[in-house]
């Protein structure tokens, strides 16, 4: 009974915190558009914001709720439990199950569709990290598939349509998606569903495309080649909608991407702020020291909150 109560309380705390944080993210993420950061940093921040509710809820549940229950809850008393924690615990289990189902469904569909796209395909180029396949004419023009073993599929139509330079820069763009593990990120999004997050995901997708454009392009010639490749491949009508765990080259707002590429300016690019991952280390260290310094009282407070939840 003690263990069951512990699990129910932890799950209740988790689901409440997850919903609260997700709601805050849904309301507040738009403020990021005022940030004058590079598209790479913006994509990174949007990703962090998207997975923040899940990560924070899991960390707080395991770091505070579980230990507080283990340490401060007397095992001897046979305390009853209200209907609310049971219902919320069930909601948490359903949420986790739904997340898992979405992940498995996305993975299964992707595997099935990619297998069809790969029928009759043969390797074009084998890199240390990626294999490029030449796929049939009906396959999508240029797509990145896979997470552990990323593969870039280039259709015969694409090869026929693009010049050598255009194809090289378009491939470079796709390889930037490999480097930023965008397919894995998409799968992670599937695991943490919440209403209203679709716009954030769409903004992330657009920022990720722009970031890959920026990373692939190193001069104005490259920018124009990439823009030309985008316009040409946009004319190839996709046969079917691409599954979740793939990154198509023709994604996001094409006119915005092309206009941006044609106005490519190294100087303007240098002016935007790049937010590096290590910037998070000092605040994280401060937060960790605060946690260590106040861990006892924090556990007591968490226990009080869980007690209130149980009743």
């Amino acid at each position, binding site marked *: 009974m003690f263990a069951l109560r512990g699990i129910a309380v932890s799950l209740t705390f988790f689901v409440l915190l997850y919903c609260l944080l997700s709601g805050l993210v849904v309301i507040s993420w738009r403020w990021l558009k005022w940030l004058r950061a590079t598209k790479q940093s913006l994509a990174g921040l949007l990703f962090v914001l998207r997975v923040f509710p899940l990560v924070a809820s899991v960390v707080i549940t395991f770091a505070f709720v579980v230990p507080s229950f283990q340490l401060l809850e007397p095992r001897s008393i046979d305390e009853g439990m209200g209907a609310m924690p049971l219902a919320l615990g069930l909601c948490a289990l359903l949420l986790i199950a739904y997340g898992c189902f979405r992940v498995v469904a996305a993975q299964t569909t992707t595997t099935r569709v990619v297998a069809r796209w790969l029928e009759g395909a043969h390797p074009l180029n084998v890199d240390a990290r990626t294999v490029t396949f030449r796929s049939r004419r009906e396959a999508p023009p240029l797509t990145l598939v896979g997470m552990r073993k990323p593969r870039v599929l280039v259709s015969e139509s694409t090869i026929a349509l693009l010049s050598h330079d255009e194809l090289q820069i378009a491939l470079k763009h796709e390889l930037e998606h490999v480097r930023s593990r965008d397919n894995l990120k998409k799968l992670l999004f599937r695991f943490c569903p919440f209403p209203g997050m679709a716009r954030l995901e769409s903004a992330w997708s657009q920022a990720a495309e722009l970031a890959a454009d920026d990373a692939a392009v190193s001069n*104005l*010639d490259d920018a*124009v080649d990439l*823009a*030309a490749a985008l*316009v040409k491949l*946009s*004319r190839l009508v996709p046969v079917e909608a691409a599954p979740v765990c793939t990154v198509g080259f023709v994604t996001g707002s*094409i*006119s915005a991407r*092309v*206009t941006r590429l*044609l106005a490519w300016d190294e100087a303007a690019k240098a002016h935007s702020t790049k937010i590096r991952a290590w910037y998070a280390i000092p605040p994280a260290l401060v937060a960790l020291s605060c946690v260590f310094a106040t861990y006892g009282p924090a556990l007591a407070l968490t226990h009080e909150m869980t007690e209130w939840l149980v009743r």
Partner: protein
Amino acid sequence: MTKAFSIFGSSSRPQLGPFEQQVLQELWSHGSATVRELLADGKIHQAYTTVMTTMDRLYKKGLLERVAEGRAFRYTPRHTPEELQRNTALESIRQLLGSGEASRLPLSYLVEALSTHDAQLLDELQLLVERKRREIQSRKIKAGDAVTREPRDRERR
């Protein structure tokens, strides 16, 4: 934006007349304004009462918000031009799709119109790319000329 207004007129939402459109445009450029401030700008050549009535009508149509400021009101547009355009488009599409049993037919027109629009947009983008390519090419040729001319000039000197 004019397009948005014309669609707006055909929807179930309140229709906007030319003067109402002008007042709304002026308010968008100001952010917020009182009747006196709009008139002081000199772009609207109408009587104070006409502008006041129009703004009041726009407020009643739900397009403006207002707060009392002394004896007058300060008006602020409730939507940005983009939001209004979006709402208008959505409303029109909703009307088009909800037009009874034959909603498949309007949908096919919509798809056709979108495909034509897409093709036009891509043509325009293609032109932009080609223009940029020509620009780069001519810049390179000029730079190449300058490089070849420089040693010749030095020799002449």
